[in-house]
């Protein structure tokens, strides 16, 4: 299944396009920083602190997206025993973990001038912290059970359990009364954020997504070379 991801062709694809993705990411990041820090207006209530949104929101979206992918692939990996999916998940996890950490820390920094506190045990923030713990345990499982033949099973179960938390994070602001504001950017209904703020937000999201793709390709490349090293040892 999915032979392209296992083949040498994917490895060469990684080597070939890594630099291109890197340059594209840097250009988008510079444009996003320019738009977010200089061009976009300040909020009429929050003032300039609203600019934290341009790093906080994309980080939260990407960390959620990555865990959703990890969880979904883990279901397939658990059911169909596809080893390659485990390598893909392992390569995605560090990026998701770092983005989750960025979302939590920048959220705390944003909370201080907006709510007057660094932290509140509110549903959205607590569920994001739980996601962070899932990422941590998931990454830890690869080190703890490195030589265990049940590594695939153990890591998949952690990811599948963590997947339950994703809709809780998404709908926490609707299900419970929270300090965290509801979503401003919606796909199915009208977005309540002005275009002058939406544009830098989307540029920053695109650049963060490219960064996660870059790190994924590099990490996946490393894992494939590790496998080849093991094969060479056996020869």
């Amino acid at each position, binding site marked *: 299944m999915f032979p392209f991801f296992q083949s040498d062709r994917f490895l060469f694809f990684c080597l070939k396009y890594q630099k291109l993705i890197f340059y594209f990411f840097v250009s988008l990041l510079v444009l996003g920083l320019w738009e977010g820090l200089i061009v976009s207006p300040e909020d009429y209530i929050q*003032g300039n602190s609203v600019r934290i949104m341009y790093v906080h929101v994309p980080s939260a979206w990407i960390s959620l997206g990555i865990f959703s992918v990890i969880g979904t692939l883990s279901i397939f990996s658990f059911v169909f025993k596809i080893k390659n999916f485990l390598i893909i998940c392992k390569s995605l996890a560090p990026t998701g973990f770092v983005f989750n950490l960025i979302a939590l820390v920048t959220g705390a*920094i944003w909370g201080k001038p907006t709510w007057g506190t660094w932290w509140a045990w509110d549903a959205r923030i607590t569920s994001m912290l739980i996601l962070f713990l899932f990422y941590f345990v998931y990454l830890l499982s690869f080190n703890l059970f490195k030589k265990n033949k049940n590594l695939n099973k153990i890591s998949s179960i952690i990811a599948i359990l963590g997947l339950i938390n994703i809709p809780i994070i998404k709908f926490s602001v609707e299900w419970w009364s929270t300090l965290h504001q509801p979503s401003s950017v919606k796909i199915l209904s009208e977005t309540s954020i002005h275009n002058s703020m939406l544009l830098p937000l989307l540029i920053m999201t695109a650049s963060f997504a490219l960064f996660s793709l870059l790190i994924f390709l590099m*990490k996946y490349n490393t894992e494939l070379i590790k496998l*080849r090293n093991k094969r060479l040892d056996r020869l």
Partner: protein
Amino acid sequence: MIVNFLNMDGHGIFVWSAFIFTMVNFLTLYFIISKNLKKEKIKFFSRYSIYKKDKDRTKNLPESKETVSAIKFAVKSKN
């Protein structure tokens, strides 16, 4: 003007620390991952060269699928 821009009406400390934290994390992650990749590549080439020496001595042995794949990879990534 620059001071005003950096100060951001008193919110500068929050905004800049959030952006700096993000960029520091990006750089750290990028360097850790690229360092590991480099390490594995070096390991691969050292093992591959040992294998190649052995192969010169055992020319008549048939090559396995994995060997061919490893050789192809080594040659192409060196290019």
